[in-house]
């Protein structure tokens, strides 16, 4: 790096762009995350709007997954992980001592990088959440809920004849859609996706991207992705992370065509990461 660039890239780790949106679904302010003594997220403020897809991009290890896991308190399951700052869901502080993370996770669902269906039948995979939360009163209602969830995930037509077959027997893309159906079945408000297509082939990826676009009608979605094309295709807003800082956030179009921060530009144009 030339000295001028170095100075410029270091001059500001303040977020460029407007991180807040009116009437946000989730509102994060000055979020810091430590793994033991190591600070993985340095004071990030970011809003997730209603019916929007927010994509998070950035080089490996910059804290995208860590930040995403704060939003449904999945970090609680990691030893030595501490979170400070304020994260609100519909105005309610989710790290409040009085708040139980278990029902929160039903409201903020999560889809993982590697499809992880339970070693149960397709039906049971989807019925899992509704069963533990007692969402239905009888078998007919549960059947209906399983069907609508699978329909919303675009999987119904492919599996309706073999609902009793094991979920692990599906193809990778189908497994990931099964995981999405499973998440939808508990009627979350927000869906978090951590690189949901990185283990899939291009065709399965295209199907999932289409699905994400449809889901936006009913849910707020935050998606971490390694692929900038994917971010450009599915999201309305994009946030660029760098070494635990949120560098820049804005309309997806603007981030990809006219990035304001030098680091964002380097990443977008492939000079870094």
């Amino acid at each position, binding site marked *: 790096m030339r000295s001028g660039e170095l100075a410029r890239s270091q001059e500001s780790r303040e977020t460029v762009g407007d991180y807040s949106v009116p009437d946000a679904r989730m509102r994060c302010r000055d979020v810091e995350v430590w793994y033991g003594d190591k600070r993985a997220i340095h004071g990030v403020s970011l809003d997730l709007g209603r019916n929007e897809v927010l994509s998070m991009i950035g080089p490996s290890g910059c804290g995208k997954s860590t930040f995403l896991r704060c939003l*449904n308190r*999945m970090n609680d*399951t990691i*030893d030595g992980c501490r979170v400070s700052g304020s994260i609100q869901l519909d105005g309610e502080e989710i790290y409040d001592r009085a708040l139980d993370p*278990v*029902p*929160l*996770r*039903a*409201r903020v*669902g*999560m889809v*993982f990088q*590697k499809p*992880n*269906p*339970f*070693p*149960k039948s397709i039906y049971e995979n989807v019925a*899992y*959440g509704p069963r*533990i*939360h007692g969402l239905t009163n009888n078998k007919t209602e549960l059947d209906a809920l399983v069907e609508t969830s699978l329909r919303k995930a675009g999987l119904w037509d492919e599996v309706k004849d073999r609902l009793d077959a094991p979920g*692990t027997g599906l193809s990778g893309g189908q497994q990931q859609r099964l*995981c999405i159906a*499973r*998440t939808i079945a*508990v009627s979350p408000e927000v869906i978090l996706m951590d690189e949901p297509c990185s283990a899939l082939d291009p065709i399965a990826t295209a199907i999932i991207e289409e699905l994400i676009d449809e889901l936006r009608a009913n849910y707020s979605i935050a998606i971490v992705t390694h692929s900038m094309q994917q971010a450009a295709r599915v999201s309305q807003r994009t946030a660029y992370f760098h070494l635990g800082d949120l560098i820049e956030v804005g309309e997806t179009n603007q981030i990809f065509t006219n990035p304001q921060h030098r680091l964002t530009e380097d990443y977008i144009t492939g000079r870094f990461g």
Partner: protein
Amino acid sequence: MQDWILLLVLLAVMTAAYHLGRRRAVIGAGGPSQVHRLHSLPAYYGLYAALWAGLPALLLLALWVGLQDQLVLMLLQAQLPEEMTAGLSEGRLGLLVNDIRNLASGAMLSTEITPELQAAADQYARLDQLGQWSMWTAVLALALTGGWVAWGRTHPGFKARNQVETMVMAIMVLFSSIAILTTLGIVLSVLFESLRFFSMVSPLEFFLGTLWSPQTALRADQVGASGAFGAVPLFTGTLMVSAIAMLVAVPIGLLSAIYLSEYAPRRLRAVAKPVLEVLAGIPTVVYGFFAALTVAPFIRELGQSVGLDVASESALAAGLVMGVMIIPFVSSLSEDVINAVPQSLRDGSYALGATESETIKRVIIPAALPGIVGGVLLAVSRAIGETMIVVMAAGLAANLTANPLDSVTTVTVQIVTLLTGDQEFDSAKTLAAFALGLTLFAVTLVLNVVALHIVRKYREQYD
């Protein structure tokens, strides 16, 4: 004797062969600077020569040491004067031969030394000496021949490495077949002895009869010797003790495995796991006297205080203690399979708003179940084959009962009692032990095969 000196000499010959073979290869290639022209590294030519010199000779040595004594004794007996052996029974003859040997080596005798005996002893010493000398000659000749053969074959293009590797592999095959053949031999001997038993007692009586009383009459008028071989009471006794043991071990072992792998803080786990492993290291004989001296009387007193009639050697006591012994077995196997359930499944469940216990009940246990079942089956086969605890704490009376407070006996206990003490080796009583052993072997083998199959199938699921 001086066999070990011969062994040392043989080692020296091998060392010499190594150096000579190596040297010949190097010189054949045109000196140390030209060793790259050899097919293999020089050391392989040395090893090749050493193996040729050593292996056949060692084999011959082993055979000779094993057979020489018998050969010499046979020759000796053939040469004994008529008047010494006339009218002697097989046993007396053996005694006489023994005396001759003892005299030759200067040990104590059972009779006085007669001139004939002295002559025979001298003859024995001569034969033995002759055997020694021929052994030395034959072994060393074979070693030198082997070395000479290797010498003749050594030239730069010779594939010494491949030859050495083949020979080393042959040696390893030999050793592993020793292990396999031993097992096979044991199984076959048990099988044949069992067949002999079943020619005396019908299998129908053995497997379906309900009266077990193996004392066969030595004299026709002996009392209390009915010789009934219905093994059903032993099977039910074994089943009851094992079932009680599993009732103790499975819940405790499984729950502690779940607690340790899912709930326990790391520091507690670091202490608790080794403690459980110590439990696994306690010798079963210690469990045995614990069961017989502490648990059984305790249960009896407890029973009496509530008005129950409890045998002093109850199935319950033996089963309880055996269960404690098996706990670490169940818990460590279950913990392994529970830990093998991928973290991603736990995350998937938590992310749907499931609690820890819901996740364990509905995802982890079902996913680990095949492995757990496999582990439990392995534990069952251990319980069935367990001997020491039941020998000490279960009874000898072959009661056909479903009451755990009664005294019962097990297959293993009966095998022990049938074979301890002085026995005739061809009576139905002794042979019954082989039939019991065969049954035990068959059952545990089936259990182990099924269990391993289940565990292996489960492993494949996540890799």
